[in-house]
């Protein structure tokens, strides 16, 4: 059988022990491209992880007493599930009316998207990007672009702070991140950081929203 090598946060290890299927690899939409992508869902803590893969040719693994071709290295990093919910809310938003969430988050191509409905504090999350109405104790949601842009702006600011804290080279010259002198950072202007952070966030939102965010 194929074997995969993953870098995942330590605390996830007992998730797979605590309950059967504690960790599930599922295919969901990539909110930027609309294509499929692999995610990891932690059923215990109801937490979503995106999977990035380091792929370079001519590598393989020795894993204990076996060899595994390909030599791929997978990374699982926590991801804000609101990016995925947003994908469905924007799609439904085109109809311009309030809808119950379980009619919005549906996808015959990626049926596992219903797992997103199990996320804790879902209503709190949704308030960042939707207008809501309550009728007979049932909640109805409608996508709000204004609120979403405000939410995304916060994301960009958090990302700028993280880029600085991690000394990521945002200079316009595309250089390998490994070779740069720290004083380079000071010369990078605030605008470079914002542009870079916008670009990074745009990997998780549709093109149209990315353009709106850029103007915003």
């Amino acid at each position, binding site marked *: 059988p*194929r074997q*995969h090598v993953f870098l995942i946060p330590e605390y996830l290890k007992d998730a797979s022990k605590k309950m059967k299927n504690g960790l599930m*690899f599922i295919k969901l939409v*990539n909110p*930027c*491209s609309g*294509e*499929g*992508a*692999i995610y990891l869902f932690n059923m215990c803590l109801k937490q979503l992880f*995106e*999977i*990035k*893969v*380091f*792929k*370079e*040719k*001519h590598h393989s693994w020795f894993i204990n007493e076996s*060899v595994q071709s390909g030599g791929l290295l*997978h*990374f699982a990093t926590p991801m804000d599930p609101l990016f995925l919910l947003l994908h469905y809310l924007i799609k439904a938003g085109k109809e311009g009316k309030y809808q119950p969430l379980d009619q919005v988050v549906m996808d015959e191509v990626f049926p596992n998207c219903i797992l997103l409905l199990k996320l804790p504090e879902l209503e709190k999350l949704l308030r960042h990007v939707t207008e809501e109405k309550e009728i007979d104790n049932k909640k109805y949601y409608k996508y709000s672009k204004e609120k979403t842009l405000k939410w995304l702006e916060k994301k960009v600011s958090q990302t700028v702070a993280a880029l600085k804290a991690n000394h*990521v080279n945002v200079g316009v010259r*595309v250089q*390998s*991140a490994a070779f740069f002198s720290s004083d380079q950072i000071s010369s990078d202007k605030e605008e470079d950081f914002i542009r*870079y952070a916008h*670009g*990074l966030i*745009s*990997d998780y939102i549709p*093109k149209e929203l990315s353009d709106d965010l850029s103007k915003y």
Partner: protein
Amino acid sequence: MDLSELEKDNTGRSRLSSPVPAVCREEPCVLGVDEAGRGPVLGPMVYAICYCPESRLADLEALKVADSKTLSESERDRLFAKMEEDQDLVGWALDVLSPNLISTSMLGRVKYNLNSLSHDTATGLIQYALDQGVKVTQVFVDTVGLPEMYQKRLQQRFPEITVTVKAKADALYPVVSAASICAKVARDQAVKSWQFVEKLQDLDADYGSGYPNDPKTKAWLRRHVEPVFGFPQLVRFSWRTAQAILEKEAEGVTWEDSATEEQEGHRRITSYFQSEGPRARAPHRYFQERGLESATAL
């Protein structure tokens, strides 16, 4: 012969030598070079020098170190013991080149072929004798490759010594034959007492002479080929015999610089201009610079 150093690490090269007879630092000496184990597909190749005062060549001849090829293994051992006894007659030194060193030299990215390895080893041993203070005036070498070119290179390297490179030198010059005996004794012993770094379960040392056409050797190679790791390091991976078995029995491996890369058909120039449909947006440079992309399948 004490090969304990070799047994500690038989993946590189190790040098052994006798004490230098005092007389060899005073009187002009003749030095012979020869090697053993050039042809076999397994085990080390051993380069040896033997040197003795010109005035004592007759005594060396008297030892009956005739053409070493005509001697049996036990006769060689006996003669070697006698040379060791006669400490003020001959001195010797040898380089044991492990199969791993041979393979990695020949298969390295920059090829270092067997002839160059041989020439450099012989040169190194002659230099070693000079560094030990031996008054070498003549050197006789059994040829490897083209005698003239080899002779010229050695003569350039050691202008103050008379160098003679000749085929079958071990049958012509007793000091070369003595070197050949040292080399063969060392090689036989190294092969016989080979310490496998690989903890082989069904270890059997029944690999015959080690020559590629020896049926025992071929059978042993086939018995011990491992699809991922090839062979134990006793084997010279760069030998055709070994490669033939690997090509048949072992898994394929691709390297960054493996030839297939170059053979890959060059794309038609037009293909660079045809748009390949809506190109999926490239990942952000943060990921590109780190070789990361979204996993779309497991």
